[in-house]
């Protein structure tokens, strides 16, 4: 099935960080069944760093591999660093994606970003409540 790189296949076969985080600090959801892919990212933040990232994904092989690599790329990063994980970086890290699957790498970056937004939002609210 060499429409996918070996790296994509490896992550599809052995996805890292599948699952949910109980009481996550942030959650990011993207996609919908019409476009064919849905991703939920869960993050745990400590000292402005992503201590843990988990995901659940409904989608094609590329979507699963993207989720896996994004989670791997994100763990241990500061929030700012994590924000710099672009679709292109994700695709490069996977040694390329077929043209019609590039949008998947976009979704992965977006889901992570949404989770970070969610964390910051919550924090702001908590700050306001304090």
């Amino acid at each position, binding site marked *: 099935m060499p429409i996918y790189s070996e790296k994509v296949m490896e992550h599809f076969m052995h996805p890292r960080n599948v699952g949910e985080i109980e009481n996550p600090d942030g959650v990011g959801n993207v996609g919908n069944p*019409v476009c*064919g892919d849905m991703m*939920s990212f869960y993050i745990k933040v400590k000292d402005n760093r992503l201590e843990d990232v988990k995901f659940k994904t409904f*989608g094609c092989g590329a979507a699963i591999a993207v989720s896996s690599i994004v989670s791997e790329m994100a763990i241990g990063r500061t929030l700012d660093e994590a924000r710099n994980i672009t679709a292109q970086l994700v695709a490069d890290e996977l040694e390329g994606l077929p043209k019609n699957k590039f949008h998947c790498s976009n979704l992965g970056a977006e889901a992570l970003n949404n989770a970070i937004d969610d964390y910051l939002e919550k924090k702001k609210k908590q700050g306001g409540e304090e």
Partner: protein
Amino acid sequence: MRQVYLDNAATTPLLPEIADEMMPYLGKYFANPSCLHDWGDAPREAMENARLQVANLIGARSEEIIFTGSGTESNNFAIKGLAMARQAKGKHVVVSAIEHFSVLHSAKTLEKWGFEVTLVPVDGQGLVDPDAVRQSLRPDTVLVSIMHANSEVGTIQPIAEIARITRENNVLFHTDAVATAGTIPVDVTGLGVDALSLAASQFYGPKGAGALWLKKGVRIMPLLDGGVQEGGRRAGTEDVPAIVGLGKAAQLAAGSLTDRLNRLTSLRDRLLAELPAKIEHVIVTGVALPAQHRLPGHASFCVEFIEGESMLMLLNIQGVAVASGSACTSRALKASHVLIAMGLSHELAQGSILFTLGIDNNHEDVDYVLEVMPPAVDRLRQMSPLYAKFTRTGKGGG
């Protein structure tokens, strides 16, 4: 590892005896069949023999067979050519919502050329209601095209009933029989149609050879203009080896249709019955058991909470070749227009998976699928946010 090819709707293997039949025309009988000298004789005669073989398969006369390069070309030729030849009479065309893209997109092209197109809906099993066709007809309707069977959900349409309606209304009727010709009995008189498309690569013949059957006297505008080949209706140097292969495939199919049918049906029925029994939240798409109005080798499902391509990939790793969505366009990303037209949600439609059996398959192949499929589904569901939601809330199931 066991290798199980279950993607016969995408294309069937070429039978070795058909390939053998083609060989002389890839060798010493290479000449152009239009040539007047002796070199043209063998290819010309072989081509005319193939024409007769194809005609015999569908109960037609050989002069009514026009060779084309594919099912897609036959459909484009029929839809555009029949409509354009009648535009003085009217500019309205009727097709079903679940036609193959070669019909649907040809109809779209007709729209660009000033035609109006009505899409006839289907029910939850993918069946066209003949009455809906009747109601779609207008005084300016010049062509109806409803496929004989759909290759995504296997549903066989009531063509003869629809043909009665088009005949009563003096409207031309084309049927896309690419999924049926050579697989189930196809008789143009019994069906009562005016034009019919077929393709060799769907019944163990070669790629590069299709045919359009056109009832004697029916006018058509050529799609390929040029020389006088095929009576001036389809120009271009004929692909003799492929045409010979199509003929041989037609002859073999005609001779073993019942055998093949029985064999495939028994395997199919096991899949239709046992897969949903083994895996929770799996629905049959198209006609469920007892499945008379279903292609014999065709078992299609939607697996809830997960997506088709990833299932396909996991099965591929286990040596099993299947399709998801439309077999021929697995690379298109959108949910199958067929399943959506049948009323399935996008979520469910994304989980489509399609097993199409061929004459080389056996019960061990089915056993193997039944063994490797459940863990694959399970694994993907463990990753799925939709499944998580369902197990949490009991909601989202179909």
